[in-house]
């Protein structure tokens, strides 16, 4: 219950008190602990800390993860479609081109052979023969004399693009047999300055190639549509399958330990994830039940003997005067017994405080949360403790708005603020002022990811808590050296902290009057709703 009393508490920055026990000096363990090593950090909010009914954080996460998967899926699909089209193209249009080239090369070679055997007239004769049997008029020939004359062939003139002796292959638009057409041409040089041009009309092949290209483009377009649709389906399926797990996790975080992930029975990865979660929850449930059983058992097994001892002492107190020989002895005996009873009552109080803290920390009381208005509760407490402050020669001032709504645990909130007021009155100097104020917060994000909606502040003019001790002030039984000789169990702030955590909020301790001496303590209990 006691903050420390160092006389020289420099005006330091406010320190949020960590969760009790052996917590690190800053930050909330809950925020970091449950994240596995292999998982990428969830983009944005913390999944476990999201408010139970709101699905924002998970949907957000899903959106990104699902979107990434869907994108990957679409990209893979597109790449495979592209590869397929390339292979198809190479195997059809490409094969036709290669075939044409091979035919032209073979034809040119054959004619060159003929030239060697029978001279120019022989070659010309062979060309005329070929043209005569070409029913489809696909073949193109031009045998040119060194002076440019046409010795044989069906081409009107030697194409100027192939005038250059180095031009061997070309795709050109030419006129043969009186019609213009697209042609594949192959030119070779013959001995004596003659040149031979062999070609094929490829108009049909080009049409075929266009058809093929069109077909491929349409196919690719449809494939892309399917890919997008598939990606959307994938994302939706992922969301649908993950939602039960999320809902359960959110309900558990909200304190309802009975929730389990609904399984589809397919036995797939999602079912395995759900089953693993359920197994984990069963275990947590058993542990919680065990803890409850143990604390019930401790409550019973410890309280009953204390009750017996207290009963015996009370009995003895009634009998003592008769049993003692002298009045002096009787008085001493009576005093000793009364002290024993007082000690037992102190033990009971500490025990009771520990049970309360455990109760709050277990989060089981979240089930008992109800909507309430803090202001009348605080006004009552102020009136109640105002009498104590007055008796201690202090004043209790309040600054309360018309209403501060909150969903929470009335009894524990009352006790938390009562502990803060009790501390303030206990450590404040005579003639000093204790200030109790409250305000609604605009939903700023708290340490557990929940939106903070209310703040209750208790400020005193006492010695405050040294910044170095603030982080430890909420630990059980922590008492700064300076407060060792004041009454109290060292559990008061632990309870306040546990209540803050139960309401997914925080306890901030800071100097009430920075720079002044003594600096005073301002305790701000910041709470989330529900």
């Amino acid at each position, binding site marked *: 219950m006691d903050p420390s009393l160092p006389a020289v508490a420099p005006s330091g920055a406010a320190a949020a008190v960590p969760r009790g026990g052996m917590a690190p000096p800053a930050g909330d363990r809950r925020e970091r602990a449950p994240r596995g090593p292999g998982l990428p950090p969830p983009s944005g909010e913390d999944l476990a800390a999201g408010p139970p009914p709101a699905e924002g954080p998970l949907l957000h996460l899903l959106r990104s993860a699902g979107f990434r998967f869907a994108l990957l899926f679409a990209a893979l699909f597109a790449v495979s479609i592209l590869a397929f089209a390339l292979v198809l193209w190479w195997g059809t249009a490409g094969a036709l081109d290669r075939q044409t080239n091979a035919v032209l090369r073979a034809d040119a070679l054959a004619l060159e052979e003929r030239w060697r055997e029978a001279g120019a007239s022989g070659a010309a004769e062979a060309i005329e023969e070929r043209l005569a049997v070409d029913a489809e008029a696909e073949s193109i020939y031009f045998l040119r004399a060194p002076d440019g004359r046409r010795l044989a062939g069906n081409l009107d003139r030697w194409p100027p693009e192939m005038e250059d002796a180095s031009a061997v292959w070309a795709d050109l638009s030419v006129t043969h047999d009186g019609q213009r057409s697209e042609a594949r041409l192959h030119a070779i040089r013959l001995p004596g300055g003659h040149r031979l041009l062999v070609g094929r009309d490829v108009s049909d092949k080009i049409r075929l190639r266009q058809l093929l290209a069109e077909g491929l483009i349409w196919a690719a377009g449809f494939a892309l549509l399917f890919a997008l649709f598939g990606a959307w389906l994938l994302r939706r399926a992922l969301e649908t399958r993950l939602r039960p797990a999320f809902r359960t996790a959110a309900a558990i975080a909200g304190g309802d330990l009975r929730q389990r992930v609904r399984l589809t029975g397919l036995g797939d990865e999602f079912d395995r994830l759900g089953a693993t979660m359920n197994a984990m929850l069963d275990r947590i449930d058993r542990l919680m039940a065990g803890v409850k059983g143990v604390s019930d058992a401790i*409550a*019973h097994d410890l309280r009953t003997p204390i*009750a017996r001892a207290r009963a015996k002492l*009370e009995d003895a107190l009634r009998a003592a005067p008769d049993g003692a020989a002298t009045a002096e002895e009787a008085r001493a005996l009576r005093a000793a017994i009364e002290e024993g009873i007082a000690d037992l009552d102190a033990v*009971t109080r500490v025990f009771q405080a520990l049970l309360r803290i455990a109760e709050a920390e277990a989060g089981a009381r979240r089930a*008992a949360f109800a909507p309430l208005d803090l202001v009348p509760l605080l006004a009552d407490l102020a009136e109640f*403790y105002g009498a104590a402050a007055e008796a201690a020669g202090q004043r209790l001032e309040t600054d309360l708005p018309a209403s501060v709504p909150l969903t929470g645990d009335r009894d524990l909130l*009352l006790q938390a603020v009562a502990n803060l007021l*009790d501390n303030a009155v206990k450590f404040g100097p005579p003639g000093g002022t204790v200030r109790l104020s409250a305000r609604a917060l605009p939903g700023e994000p708290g340490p557990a990811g929940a939106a903070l909606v209310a703040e209750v502040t208790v400020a005193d003019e006492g010695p405050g808590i040294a910044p170095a001790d603030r982080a430890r002030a909420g630990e059980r039984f922590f008492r700064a050296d300076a407060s060792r000789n004041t009454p109290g169990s060292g559990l008061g702030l632990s309870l306040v902290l546990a209540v803050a955590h139960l309401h997914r909020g925080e306890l901030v301790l800071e100097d009430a009057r920075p720079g002044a001496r003594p600096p005073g303590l301002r305790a701000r209990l910041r709470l989330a709703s529900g």
Partner: protein
Amino acid sequence: MRILLVEDDAEVARFVRKGLQEAGHVVEHAANGRDGLFLAASEQFDLLVLDRMLPGGVDGVRLVETLRAQGNRTPVLFLSALSAVDERVRGLKAGGDDYLVKPFAFAELLARVEALGRRPAGDAPVTRLRVADLELDLLSRTVTRGGKRIEVQPREFRLLEHLMRHAGQVVTRTMLLEKVWDYHFDPQTNVIDVHVSRLRQKLDKGFDKPLIHTVRNAGYMIRAD
């Protein structure tokens, strides 16, 4: 009063029984829930004092639920080692009228027993409470002593009302905390004493006879003499 005590711990039972008998009550004792239920259902008692956890298959909550289901309205005071807020709420919901956590001071138990057992019979609503020359009007919410109006705060009015409803009986600090303020925690200070002494000052100012008396090691009592 004729009181049925159902408590499995022999020593606590003996202590409670002896104390209640010394205070002038008749006490029957049952050591388990089954016997307790049998006695409670077959005989007439003014009050039941029940341990919350009992052996024999019928615990305190079950016992009360069974009795209430049979239409038995005998007041019930729970004694329990379970202090969790939920446990208290469960005990009261089941039909208990008061809940006292072990270990307890006997004075606390006795005060609660007498407060429960001597509740005004009949349903006629009381509109006016009177102790000696002190009068409290529940309708106009005014306090007068010897015909002279005394101004009190709303909370002081409730405090005085509770004391006057139990005039002649000891009312403990915890009872006041629970019944007047509805607080179920230990305020760690003597705040109740401060509130009572304020009220006492207002009531006794200008009068010779004090009305609110402090009962050592127990609490307070308002009475005429």
